[in-house]
């Protein structure tokens, strides 16, 4: 993804929900996410909070293109995801979204560099040597310049999450989508990982962090709350009411 490409989209929101909702077919049908509008612009740092069962996972799955909404239109980086075939959604997911998971999802038998390289396997970078170079760069960026060849089993939790963040970053996505990134970390380690996210945000990365931890949520300039499938913004105005305004 080249730099001019990015500038062309400068005015385009990274995430745009137009009446997006998801209802799991019954019986009885479950409305996991009520139709809502949402706009997240480039370089924003947004946290999404809510108790378990509130619809956070549904939100994550829709934003991450892991699940398709049953209502409304979802534009990711200006691309209407509803019209894409499955292969197109997969490609978009691989190129525009960097995932960071609570349980890291690192391959235990592969070194840190190899784990980061995975993110480029199915996409643009075809030459292995280039991939390795980019992976090292990304690892250095997250402060793991000295642990390129370590296996995940030899890394601490914080280091593992940093490898995962490097993996998410390396393909230069439009959006860093983090699902409970500190859920498996002690508070000091969590703090350093969140600090890294702050830095990335400061560098211009669009970051969305989904969490149930109010402490994590408080670090972001903007917080969205989900409760019982309803999306509300910190300002107290329910997002659903903003539809069409």
């Amino acid at each position, binding site marked *: 993804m080249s730099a001019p490409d990015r500038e062309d989209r400068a005015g385009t929101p990274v995430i745009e929900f137009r009446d997006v909702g998801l209802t799991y077919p019954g019986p009885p049908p479950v409305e996991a996410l009520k139709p809502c509008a949402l706009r997240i612009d480039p370089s924003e740092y947004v946290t999404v909070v809510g108790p378990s069962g509130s619809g956070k996972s549904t939100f994550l799955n829709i934003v991450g293109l892991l699940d398709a909404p049953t209502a409304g239109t979802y534009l990711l980086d200006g691309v209407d995801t509803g019209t894409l075939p499955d292969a197109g959604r997969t*490609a978009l997911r*691989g190129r525009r979204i960097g*995932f960071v998971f609570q349980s890291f999802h690192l391959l235990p038998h592969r070194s840190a560099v190899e784990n980061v390289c*995975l993110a480029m396997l199915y996409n643009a970078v*075809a030459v*292995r040597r280039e991939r390795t170079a980019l992976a090292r760069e990304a690892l250095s960026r997250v402060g793991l310049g000295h642990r390129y060849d370590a296996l995940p089993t030899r890394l601490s939790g914080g280091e593992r999450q940093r490898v995962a963040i490097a993996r998410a970053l390396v393909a230069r996505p439009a959006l860093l989508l983090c699902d409970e990134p500190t859920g498996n970390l002690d508070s000091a380690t969590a703090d350093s990982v969140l600090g890294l996210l702050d830095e990335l945000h400061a560098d211009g990365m669009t970051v969305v962090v989904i969490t149930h931890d109010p402490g994590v949520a408080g670090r972001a300039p903007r917080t969205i709350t989900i409760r019982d499938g309803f999306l509300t913004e910190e300002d107290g105005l329910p997002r659903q009411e903003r539809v069409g305004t």
Partner: protein
Amino acid sequence: MEPSRLHWRDLLAESFAGVLQRPARSVLTAVGTVLGVGTFVAVLGLTATTSAQVDTRFTTLTATEVTVEDTGGDGPEGAKGALSFPVDADRRIERLNGVEAAGVYWSVSAKQAAPVRSAPIGAAAAGDDPPVVAASSGVLRAARPTLEQGRIYDRWHDGGGQRVAVLGSSVAERLGVTTLETGPAVFIGQVPFTVVGIVEDTERMPELLTAVIVPRTAAQELWGGPQGERARMLVSTRLGAAVQIADEAPLALRAESPDHFRSVPPPDPKKLRSKVTSDLNQLFLVLAAVCLVIGAVGIANTTLVAVLERTSEIGLRRSLGARGRHVTGQFLTESAVLGTLGGLVGTSIGTLTVVIVAVVREWTPVVHPLTVAAAPVVGLLTGVLAGLYPAWRAARIQPVEALRR
């Protein structure tokens, strides 16, 4: 947006990494294929080796032997027993190009030629009388005897109806003939036969070793032609001549009535070989197939377990842009790699088995190149077949569920 793609080199690299990340398990998984392919190669190799072995033994003796049976009616000597072979049968056949030696023989019935003793009067030899075989001198040459003492009688003895005898070594022992220096004789009925030779071993007609062999003409003069069992002719040919000789012999013997004889050429080596090997061969090939099926089930099982174990990996790959077909491809390639590795090791073990067996038996190991080339492919196919279902399952795993773990 252009779909995700996966270079085949990366696919191979990922699959090898998948196989190598659990080396012990991979080895155990491949054992079934190793056994199957190994058995396959060993069976085909051993079959080829024994076939080659049958061939060599065959060429040296059996392939150069023709038997001519007398099937005609009463011959000129009919009054005294049916015999279609002319008096000069030996010479007629030996004139044919490719014949080394030929002779007529028959068993003289015990009623006519008994008892057999080593002295004119006195007790017969202990036990049954040894059989008396009337044989022209050509039989003795065709049978390729090893002499213990003395000589075999020749055409001169034949022609003159000489009363001479050649004894098998065990008969000589029973009759108490230990040396030829004293010019011993055996008495058949009341007729003395001078013993000219004692045969220690023969390459053909081992029944001669337990018999008293007398010239055909002498036997005919004394007891007439064969009674009961008909006469036969043993022909020893040069290599490759046997079938031709078998064709020519009846005509050469009696041009006016060749139908009095039936020639038995040596069995076709190819037929003999397939007969020797086919039964065992099939059994073992079935065994090899069973091993392969077990191997395939093993691979399928392990790959399926691996798919379930690696659900989160599959989810991760999907989240990184892998399509379903990439996941299918990876697991299919992994099982194919396992199958191929098993096939390669199996081929080596099978070939080694053939070589070891051949060395122990002092045979020449023969393994068809096609067998060695095909065996790893069999392993590969086994792996691919075994991987189909698990790979299909892997592709159906939804990333949402996979990542929830």
